[in-house]
């Protein structure tokens, strides 16, 4: 295991090294190769001083891979889960950009407490049926499109930014599969949890629902092709969902994902 860890670390460092070694060209307003065909008129007018504004250059997509922790709020107390994501981000202008992403999370939780149907701890009331166990294991997938706003101002005092603070909001589709340990089970095995709901869709044991998300992140530029960042992403089902943490009601605490990740971002020149 130790040797593997070191191997992984070495590979990671090598990757960073190669990335930081990459030579890139700064934006040159004279460079027609970065001007899209539809803007070539403006580019020519600009060169002839007939138009004061340079044409917007063709800019690169950014690919991100992220790894981090995930947790879900709910009636059952969440333990630290695992999250990973890949995404592609493209600038609309110097402030706004959009991002297409896939987010995976593995969430676990529950400490054996029991709740009644209304989400109250079972010991507070008579043990009305049904009462469910809340130990769960959950696999979630989220496909989302985000609008990102960079909070960097256009500096009057230095050149290109070396760090980028941003906030975002988006919408998406979530898929969730949860296994629970029934409260009355003595075997303590996780079973497929069948949501008893008329939500967006239920395919087998998989719940499908719409989501919206908000978040913020920070990226630090290593070089023109590579930057590294951290991001906090909060994903909420649009409707009240309580099944992700294995509680089969619409009254308890709403399930919301919290995904904190370390991101490696690559500009795809």
């Amino acid at each position, binding site marked *: 295991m130790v040797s*593997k860890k070191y191997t*992984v670390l070495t*590979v*990671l460092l*090598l*990757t960073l090294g*190669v*990335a930081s070694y*990459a030579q*890139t060209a*700064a*934006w040159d*307003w*004279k460079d027609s*190769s*970065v001007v899209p065909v539809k803007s070539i008129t403006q580019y020519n007018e600009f*060169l002839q*001083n007939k138009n004061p504004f*340079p044409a*917007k*250059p*063709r*800019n*690169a*997509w*950014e*690919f991100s*891979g992220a*790894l981090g922790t995930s947790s879900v709020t709910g009636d059952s107390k969440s333990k630290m889960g695992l999250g*990973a994501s*890949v995404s592609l*981000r*493209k*600038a*609309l*202008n*110097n*402030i706004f*950009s959009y991002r297409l992403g896939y987010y995976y999370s*593995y969430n676990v939780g529950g400490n054996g407490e029991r709740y009644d149907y209304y989400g109250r701890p079972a010991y507070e009331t008579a043990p009305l049926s049904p009462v469910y166990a809340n130990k769960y294991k959950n696999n979630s997938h989220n496909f989302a499109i985000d609008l990102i706003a*960079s909070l*960097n101002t*256009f*500096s*009057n005092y230095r*050149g*290109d*930014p070396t760090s*980028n603070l*941003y906030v975002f909001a988006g919408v998406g589709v979530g898929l969730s599969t949860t296994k629970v340990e029934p409260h009355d089970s003595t075997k303590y095995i996780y079973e497929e949890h069948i949501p008893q709901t008329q939500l967006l869709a239920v395919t087998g044991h998989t719940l499908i629902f719409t989501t919206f998300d908000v978040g913020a992140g920070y990226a630090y*530029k290593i070089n*023109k*092709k*590579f*930057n590294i960042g951290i991001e906090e992403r909060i994903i909420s089902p649009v409707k009240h969902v309580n099944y992700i943490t294995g509680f089969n009601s619409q009254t308890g605490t709403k399930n919301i994902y919290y995904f904190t990740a370390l991101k*490696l971002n*690559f*500009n*795809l*020149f």
Partner: protein
Amino acid sequence: MINKKFLLIIGLIASISLTAHAQTKSKNKVEPLWWINPNDYVYSELNAPKHMKMPKVVLPDADGDGIPDQFDLEPNTPAGVPVDAHGRALDTDGDGVPDYKDKELLTPQKCFPVNADGVGVCPESQCCTDVKKELQKIIDEGLASKKADCSIASLPSIQFKSSTKLSKDAETILASAAAQLKASPSCKVKVIGYGASSKAAQQLSYDKVSAVIKYLVEKEGISESRVIFVYGQDGDANTVDLQPTTEDGPNSVPAPHPNLKSKK
């Protein structure tokens, strides 16, 4: 746990491949725009314009000589006067008077300083000075020999009694003097009258000299140009001296006090 490792490895492989991709792909794109400060272009142009159309520089030139006031050392050059690179009117001979005022465009430096018209006074050459000296010498010598021509050593004086009328003796003396003068044509005669103490004495002296000269010219036929009129000198008022000379002088002078003229 296997899943986690698998994910990590997949992620790393993706990273490496993407980085390698970034190395090889052609650069027909710029960085994502959030990494670009649009002010870069603006400030670069302000700092070192490469694209900016700079306005044509207009510098004031009050006198219109083609040299802007900022560099014009002579801001009031008259219109149309040719100037040098510093806006000063041309002065070809460098005498300090510009060409447009200079009446002598090429004054030699040895003739400096010049006057307001730019005309200088040239010193004579050594040769010319020498020639002049020689000439003067010759002239002086010639004059000296001319003076020596007057061989009359002295002429007698004329004695008047109280009036201005010439006596018989005086006429005789004047006749002999005239004979001497005629014998020496290069000689002139200075007729000197005395009497300077008062206006009346001066006038009397004048009258006596006039009488002598009148006699010499009219009776003896001595040319007027050979007579020199001198009166009013200090001395005996009844005497008029005749002095042979080669000098030049006036042969007539206006009466000093005509109202005091002798009635006789």
